[in-house]
């Protein structure tokens, strides 16, 4: 292995050498082709290769195939002088075949004598454990969101049963009507046809209810997709509408025409809306019937973070008492007798994972309004 020419002689070089060999982060120097010139002990330990073995390899050989392209792109930009340094999170394959996650930050070290020739120096940190913990946290959050979603649906079971029972009742009535018509000496086929058509559409209606519920019950993570917020609102109202009607809560929607799409997981957005609507209904419980009104509005607003789709759920209920409008979002904070206090906390983490914000304001007269803003899809 050639000695790096930039090394100074004397005591300073000794200190540098000691630091290089004993630090816990990996430090490597490669030539223009990515071949290792030097690799410290920490790096050798991280990859399971000795410095001798590494001398015949490039860092690209160690990088897992899927991450190579992005890495080379950055290295090219570095070489072309388009950037001073590079940071990348990528995966290495160790000598024993195990995959590890690393953070790499690299720099160009020009070789003064010949222009255009340089070394690459990089500091490499093993972040596999941190990454694993982050993944576990994200999984736990998804699981928690799923559990609360299922719990919420459990509370809505009676009203969901009602939503399926109505079309079933209609189907049975129409089928009986068909049998009656067909039993006549001169069957009235027009009437039979009317009933059969109604049976088909009621069957479809029941199936749609079940599809919506199944989606909310699913555990699978849905990739963020272009989402029409108005559609999300309508889907949630279809699930929760009859429950609110039973509590004599009337819903008024004001959805701006042609809302732009946002990038989101529609099921998670439904969960947030479901939660806000049930809270609004809960807050309206003690009110006289004419004040049990919930307004759902959606429109585009230009906020500090840029143009957003903003959804507001407004009730005329008990409102926010004093300064607990932020405490509301803390886990396990609840004002309900049977509440778990997770709804708003989870809703906020969902909205924030979409790059948006969720907040509450007190209305001028009665009740509170919950708003969430989602940045427009680019």
């Amino acid at each position, binding site marked *: 292995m050639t000695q790096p020419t930039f090394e100074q002689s004397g005591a300073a070089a000794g200190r540098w050498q000691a630091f290089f060999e004993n630090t816990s982060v990996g430090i490597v120097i490669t030539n223009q082709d990515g071949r290792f010139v030097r690799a410290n002990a920490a790096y050798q330990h991280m990859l399971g290769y000795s410095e001798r073995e590494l001398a015949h390899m490039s860092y690209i050989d160690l990088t897992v195939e899927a991450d190579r392209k992005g890495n080379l792109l950055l290295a090219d930009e570095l070489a072309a002088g388009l950037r001073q340094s590079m940071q990348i999170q990528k995966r290495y394959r160790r000598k024993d075949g195990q995959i590890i996650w690393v953070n790499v930050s690299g720099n160009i070290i020009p070789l003064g004598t010949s222009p255009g020739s340089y070394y690459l120096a990089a500091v490499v940190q093993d972040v596999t454990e941190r990454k694993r913990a982050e993944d576990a946290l994200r999984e736990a959050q998804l699981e928690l969101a799923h559990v609360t979603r299922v719990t919420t649906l459990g509370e809505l079971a009676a009203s969901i049963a009602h939503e399926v029972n109505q079309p079933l009742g209609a189907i049975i009535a*129409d089928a009986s009507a068909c049998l009656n018509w067909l039993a006549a000496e001169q069957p009235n086929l027009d009437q039979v046809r009317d009933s059969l058509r109604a049976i088909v559409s009621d069957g479809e209606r029941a199936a749609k209810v079940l599809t919506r519920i199944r989606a909310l019950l699913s555990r699978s993570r849905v990739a963020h997709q272009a989402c029409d917020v108005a559609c999300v609102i309508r889907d949630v109202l279809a699930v929760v509408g009859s429950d609110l009607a039973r509590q004599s809560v009337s819903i008024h929607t004001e959805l701006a025409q042609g809302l732009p799409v946002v990038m989101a997981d529609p099921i998670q957005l439904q969960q947030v809306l479901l939660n806000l609507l049930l809270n609004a209904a809960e807050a309206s419980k003690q009110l006289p019937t004419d004040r049990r009104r919930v307004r759902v509005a959606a429109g585009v607003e230009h906020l500090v973070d840029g143009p957003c789709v903003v959804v507001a759920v407004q009730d005329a209920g008990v409102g926010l008492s004093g300064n607990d409008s932020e405490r509301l979002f803390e886990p396990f904070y609840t004002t309900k007798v049977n509440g778990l206090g997770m709804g708003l906390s989870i809703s906020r983490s969902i909205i924030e994972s979409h790059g948006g914000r969720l907040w509450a304001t007190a209305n001028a007269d009665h009740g509170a309004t919950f708003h969430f803003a989602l940045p427009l899809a680019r």
Partner: protein
Amino acid sequence: MSSPEPLIFLVDDDDSFREALRRLLTSAGLRVEAFTTAQAFLDAKRPEVPSCLVLDVDLPGLGGLDLQRELRAVDATLPIIFLTGHGDIPMSVRAMKAGAVEFLTKPVRQEDLLGAITQAIERDRVEREQRAELAQLRGRYALLTAREREVMARIVVGLLNKQIAAEFGTLESTVKEQRARVMKKMQADSFAQLVRIAARLEISRKTQP
């Protein structure tokens, strides 16, 4: 008197369920008038024919039980068959105590519904006949003179002509004539029948001294 064709009123806010039920009842040869809200039903004119009401409990706004109460205030007798999406026992007890004919859970079987409707229509027919008969008796009673009413009140509790004559200070023969006029005007063939008529009209010495 030819018996007029009965009419079934139907109140349910769910369009597809209401129309399906209308088709079912029509296919069973019944005449149906359907409404979306309790208020619309209350506002509608109801013809004087044997009828009953098939009523959804879970109506938004004025609910099924509210309608039952309102109805009792204006028309005490229209029989009600309740339909509910969820068999809530306390609610059904309240409805039945307030005079509902049946409390059926959706989805409802044709036989159960038609059975309840037949029973309700029969109940309303009897009720209407009795009301008509009472109106007729009241009409006849209105033709009696004040003295004839006093005599009738005394006859039906078993007083003899002699006793009545003594009480009024008249001749027994006069009372006998008055008694004959009462029997004729009230179209009573026998003493026993007159007693029954008096009972229907709730006539006693107290109401008619």
